[in-house]
């Protein structure tokens, strides 16, 4: 089967680079074609990369607490750019401090994210979700 393409990166002015590298290797090892945009990635860069590479999903990381602000409008911009229905995930430390995660999840769902993950989620959880959503069989 053809490899599915993921665009990954750390959104906004966020420079936390370590988790991004770990995700890059974990996704590549799991058989995905990974386009890694690194840190400090704007919404436009995620979208442009997804268009050129015909990506199946955009995986956004946010570690520094500004995730909610940085992610706002991403889904609408994807629609605008012809990426209707592209899978959108977000994870890391997406909000400040400790907030009940089901609340957070609801808010990100409303913003158009298909899935959001609480702090400390292991890459395996993410990979399992991707396989389910992209209908990949082992």
């Amino acid at each position, binding site marked *: 089967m*053809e*490899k599915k*393409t993921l665009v990954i990166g750390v959104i*906004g*002015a*966020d*420079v936390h680079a370590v988790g991004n590298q770990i995700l890059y290797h974990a996704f590549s090892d799991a058989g995905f*074609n990974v*386009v890694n*945009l*690194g*840190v*400090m990635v704007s919404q436009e*860069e995620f979208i*442009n*990369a997804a*268009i*050129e*590479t*015909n*990506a199946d999903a955009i995986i956004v990381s946010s570690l*520094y*607490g*500004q995730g909610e602000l940085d992610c706002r409008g991403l889904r609408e911009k994807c629609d605008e750019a012809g990426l209707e229905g592209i899978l959108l995930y977000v994870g890391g430390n997406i909000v400040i401090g400790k907030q009940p995660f089901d609340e957070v999840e609801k808010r990100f769902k409303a913003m158009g994210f298909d899935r959001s993950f609480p702090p400390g989620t292991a890459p395996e959880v993410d990979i399992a979700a991707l396989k389910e959503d992209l209908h990949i069989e082992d």
Partner: protein
Amino acid sequence: MKPVLLIDFGSTYTKVTAVDVDAPRLLGTANSYTTVQTDINDGLADALDKLEQTTGRLVFCEKYAASSAAGGLRMLASGLVPELTAEAAKTASLGAGAKVLKTYAFKLTEDDADEIKRLNPDIFLLVGGTDGGNTDCITHNARVLAEIGGSYPVILAGNRNAARECERILEGREVHITENVMPKFGTLNIEPTQKEIREVFLNRIVQAKGMTKASELISGIMMPTPSAVMAAMKLLAEGTKRQNGIGDLVAVDVGGATTDIYSVAEGLPDDPRTSLKGLPEPYIKRTVEGDIGMRYSIHGIVDAAGIEKIAEIAGLPEERTSEIIEMFAANTDMLPNDDETQRVDEALASMAVRTAVTRHAGRLEEVFGIGGLKLVQTGKNLLNVDKFIVTGGSLIHTEHTGRIASYGFYDEEDETSLKPKHAEVLVDRKYIIAAMGLLSEHYPDAALTIMKEELVKDGTCSK
């Protein structure tokens, strides 16, 4: 003595340069006015007559030519995302010496189709999608090109997974398939496309533009004039096995209709902690500002710099400055003929240089985020480039070349722009750079020696 002749067929002038490659030196230069109507061989004969009046009779062992006649190598390009494959297509074409009439992004529209038909380019460069990436756009665009027809060749340098399908869609057309300009996301792979453009130029365009007759007289290398300039600048910067080059450089060529900027430098950040954004930059880069030129595009300079600034540099009232600008615009052959017109011409040249070098150079911006300042560079860092080459009519015929050139330097009022901080200005007074690029193909050492001799210093400047 071993005389070699270098010819540049331009759109208004045929220019000849004679050199001795045995004891490398310039023997002489001459040019003759040519028009679309005149046979280019008449222009050549006329220029040679003039040349021999100064050098005496010469028997040339070899003759090489470059051409920008008949509008140069006119190209159109289309890609997918403006900042990505469309930009890569433009960069590739400019670097191959083409005149890029327009670059399209995303799917071509009906209006685009009409425009392409009207512009009828020499070559169409069709790209889009990384390998394995998007195929919709490039196949759609191939269909549009197939529908409008035309006899120009199409170079396909997009997503390899769509190449054969595009070729089928364009059946009956001359199609050249080459490697993707962006095989992987964020990488730039423009050399294969440039090689293809050069071959198409040689095999087709030279003939189509009525240069076959001339080419019989010539030993070889017909290339677009800007390619010859690039070859010369690369040689001058890098040197040969036997001779050192002068190192990284920026070159400006301010023309009547456009302003070309060349840089030979890696252009990486000074501080390794700086993050790089945008497409990787080619080591040898050419940009062309179609709205910045001393006559046909004079209003573009005014739009970019403002009439106040031009008047201030000229030291004349705004009204008088405007009057003179309108005079230049209406009489595109007009040369400065008194103090006032000279001042305005130089002020315009200064602003042409500033605008075009600023657009060519990268930027270093500070991003304020939580946790402090982050530096982000886009484009090339030319701060440390210390050679600044100047060519083009309006800059080589004035005594104030150094002063005009300094407007292309780092400017505290625009501190994020990564233009050279301190550079030595070298002026191509005899207008030989393109000729030396041609010569460099077979006689690089001679070409380098002559350039080092003939490019004259006009002070070291910094702003």
